[in-house]
């Protein structure tokens, strides 16, 4: 098998250890501390288990994976790996690990730990919600079925070399190695704490776990032996839990806390946002999120493309955005603007009720029709559904709103003949990793159009699916740009078929205290929420 050294263009940004932070490390002194508030207790800091917005980026500061993202961007960089070889057929990945990376318990991290950690996530006994991400690794099915305790697709070549064998080429594999479920844990610590490892996390990351007082606070201390010189910036981060967002805001305004982990409370949003005093304290950025209306193509009359296009033209997206106080931007395609592959030149279906009505008449529904719009029953989703209902009524579509509990709507979406239309709010797809592939398979591809699946439009187009498979097979790093182009066309082709009416992309607004410093991008980091904990610094320590 001919091996292909990671192409030069790729390695230019890949092999350098996180270029963006190099300048930071030189200029910014370490020291100081910050307080982050949260309403809910931290659930678990076990990287194989934790899967909510709160613990997701906390875990990233305690552990490392083979891959990571450049702070503030969606750009993949190597973390524990110092070089990699990808076979030309895209089925073998070999990583050389950095030497001298130590766990918080002082032991050196080796290739055995990498193998152990991913096997632990995939092992059904671990009950990891992320096991499914590793389906491309050879031997995955046997392990899931309980036939073996190891993954045949992971080989330890020597203490600092690990080789992955895949059962199919998959260009998202490097992203998968950057998600928390692939982070490296020391076996002895997992064995020692058992199911309580999530409360006593031991990793190799920028911070170490210092204190966890249930219901009150979690304290991280700077890892003095962190392999990346100059990082992290803070000496200590305290996460204070049990703080109502409204009270947390008052405390931030008094200078007692530094970051609102749950964001600005909706009731105060406009007041806080429009206050000129806060101009430097609020950072706005995109999210890997799209809110959309699905139209079930297996149910009449949404089997008719013209009807679906008419719905796309009927929804006044600007008004919907106003309903949520401008915390979003109108969407015209499935991908959010922050996602690679977003088509900036595509204009989508403009809001045009007259044209929508004409299109409906062409489709044979001059008098409109009756249908149902499912929505989740927590604010603001019922209000958004009502706005959409009014827009649809204007072109003659009489939609009855079914406002239900989240799991009921998800169940209805997963049945082929139940929900003609669903407003996705509260259940909308938020990408697990910044790659367009993650926005297709489960929610628009044929694979997701199965009972219990997330493709609530039940749209399955073999041609488009073929292109998607082709794109994911393009594992050669030199073809990365070509692959993104192919993905871009996939989503524009889908828009022509219009199984969805994309409505908006939620924006993030991170509010921080005056004393925190760092580029705006790290406060709206696409992967670290609410802030990139490793690179944010304290101005008073400078």
């Amino acid at each position: 098998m001919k091996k292909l050294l990671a192409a030069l263009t790729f390695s230019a940004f890949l092999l350098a250890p996180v270029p963006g932070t190099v300048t930071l490390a030189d200029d910014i002194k370490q020291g100081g501390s910050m307080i982050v508030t949260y309403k809910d207790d931290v659930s678990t800091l076990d990287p194989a288990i934790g899967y909510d917005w709160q613990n997701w980026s906390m875990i990233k500061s305690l552990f490392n994976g083979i891959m990571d993202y450049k702070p503030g961007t969606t750009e993949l960089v190597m973390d524990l790996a110092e070089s990699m070889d990808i076979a030309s057929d895209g089925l073998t990945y070999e990583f050389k690990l950095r030497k001298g990376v130590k766990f918080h318990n002082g032991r050196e991290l080796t290739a055995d730990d990498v193998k152990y950690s991913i096997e632990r996530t995939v092992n059904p006994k671990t009950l990891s919600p992320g096991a499914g991400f590793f389906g491309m690794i050879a031997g995955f099915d046997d392990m899931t079925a309980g036939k073996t305790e190891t993954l045949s697709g992971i080989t330890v070549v020597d203490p600092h070399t690990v080789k992955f064998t895949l059962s199919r080429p998959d260009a998202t594999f490097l992203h998968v190695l950057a998600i928390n479920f692939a982070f490296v844990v020391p076996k002895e610590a997992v064995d020692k704490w058992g199911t309580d490892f999530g409360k006593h996390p031991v990793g190799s990351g920028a911070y170490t776990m210092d204190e966890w007082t249930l219901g009150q606070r979690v304290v991280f201390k700077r890892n003095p032996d962190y392999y990346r010189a100059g990082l992290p910036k803070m000496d200590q981060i305290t996460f204070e839990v049990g703080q109502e967002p409204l009270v947390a805001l008052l405390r931030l305004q008094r200078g007692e806390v530094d970051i609102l982990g749950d964001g600005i409370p909706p009731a105060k949003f406009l007041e806080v946002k429009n206050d000129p005093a806060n101009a430097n304290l609020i950072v706005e950025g995109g999210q890997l999120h799209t809110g959309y209306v699905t139209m079930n193509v297996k149910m009449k009359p949404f089997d008719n493309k013209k009807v679906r296009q008419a719905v796309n033209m009927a929804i006044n997206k600007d008004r919907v955005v106003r309903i949520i106080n401008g915390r979003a931007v109108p969407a015209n395609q499935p991908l959010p603007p922050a996602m690679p592959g977003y088509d900036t030149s595509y204009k989508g279906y403009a809001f045009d009720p007259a044209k929508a009505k004409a299109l409906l008449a062409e489709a044979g529904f001059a008098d409109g029709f009756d249908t149902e719009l499912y929505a989740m029953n927590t604010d603001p989703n019922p209000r958004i559904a009502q706005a959409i209902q009014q827009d649809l009524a204007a072109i003659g579509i009489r939609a009855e709103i079914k406002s239900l509990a989240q799991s009921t709507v998800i169940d209805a979406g997963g049945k082929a003949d139940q929900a003609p239309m669903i407003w996705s709010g509260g259940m909308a797809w938020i990408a697990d990793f910044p790659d367009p592939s993650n926005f297709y398979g489960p929610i628009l591809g044929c694979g997701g159009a199965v009972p219990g699946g997330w493709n609530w439009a039940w749209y399955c187009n073999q041609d488009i699916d073929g292109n998607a498979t082709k794109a994911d097979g393009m594992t050669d790093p030199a073809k990365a740009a070509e692959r993104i182009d192919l993905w871009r066309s996939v989503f524009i082709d889908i828009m022509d078929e219009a199984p969805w009416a994309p409505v908006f992309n939620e924006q993030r607004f991170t509010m921080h205290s005056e004393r925190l410093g760092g580029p705006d991008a790290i406060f709206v980091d696409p992967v670290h929420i609410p802030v990139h904990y490793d690179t944010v610094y304290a101005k008073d320590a400078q």
Partner: protein
Amino acid sequence: MKGLGVYVLKRIGQALLIMIGITLITFILLYLLPADPARQIAGRSATAETVENIRRQLGLHLPFYEQYLRYLSSLVQGDLGRSYIQKTEVTELILSRLPATLLLMAGAISCELLIGLPAGILAAVKRGKFADNAIMILSFVGVSAPQFVVGILLLYVFAVQFGWFPIGGYGTAAHLVLPALTLGLLGGGWYSRMMRSSMLDVLRQDYIRTARAKGAGQMRILTVHALRNAILPIIAMIGLDVGIFMSGVVVVESVFGWPGIGQLAWQAIQRVDIPIIMGVTLVAACFIVVGNFLADVIAPFVDPRIELK
């Protein structure tokens, strides 16, 4: 007091039945919830096999009665189960938060007595006058104002505007004042009304008239003669407060970031963390049963006319 032993045994038996009834009702309600805990734990990226695997490991695939019996049998062994979301033993979570709730209750009981008793006495003495009317109106406000609103209001005025107290949190005596006051205002309202009517009853008694005739001063009559009798029925009510507070702490602890079991319950309800909801419900029920029991046992001591049956 031979009757007391029998009485206590009877009450413990009743309490056990009540607790079993509560587990059953809570279990049925949570079972009927449209949320699927296995799917909730698995998250949206999980495959169908992962969800099924989780369901089996938690025993959620079993029929209702079997799940219930499993719960009861571990409950008897003191095991409240493991939180779905927080991945921690429920017993550990509750025990870590119980001291905060007990402290808050003690603070609240002190507050309501400190507010309610003097106000009630003053209203009784000044019956029909301005002070009486003002106190009765204020007590009405105290009883009816929603605690969420009172809490936010106190927080905003005394912590944010004046800066006298910390904005929520836990740790020092200063942290305790506002949440205890929020809870205590409600009870203070009740107590001022009860104290007033109890005091009025006593002041009408013959022995007070006798004391007056003997030339005792107003102060002496109130403190030495009247108060000692008037306060007895009130003391007996404190046990019941413990139960009433159980609902109050959910709101007050959330507003003030007080790390007690009320906040734990509120978080668990929002995240459908069923083992915690069950556990906190049981603990709250225990509180209420014990509180009522104490109120009943204390009553005959403070008023010998009451008999335990």
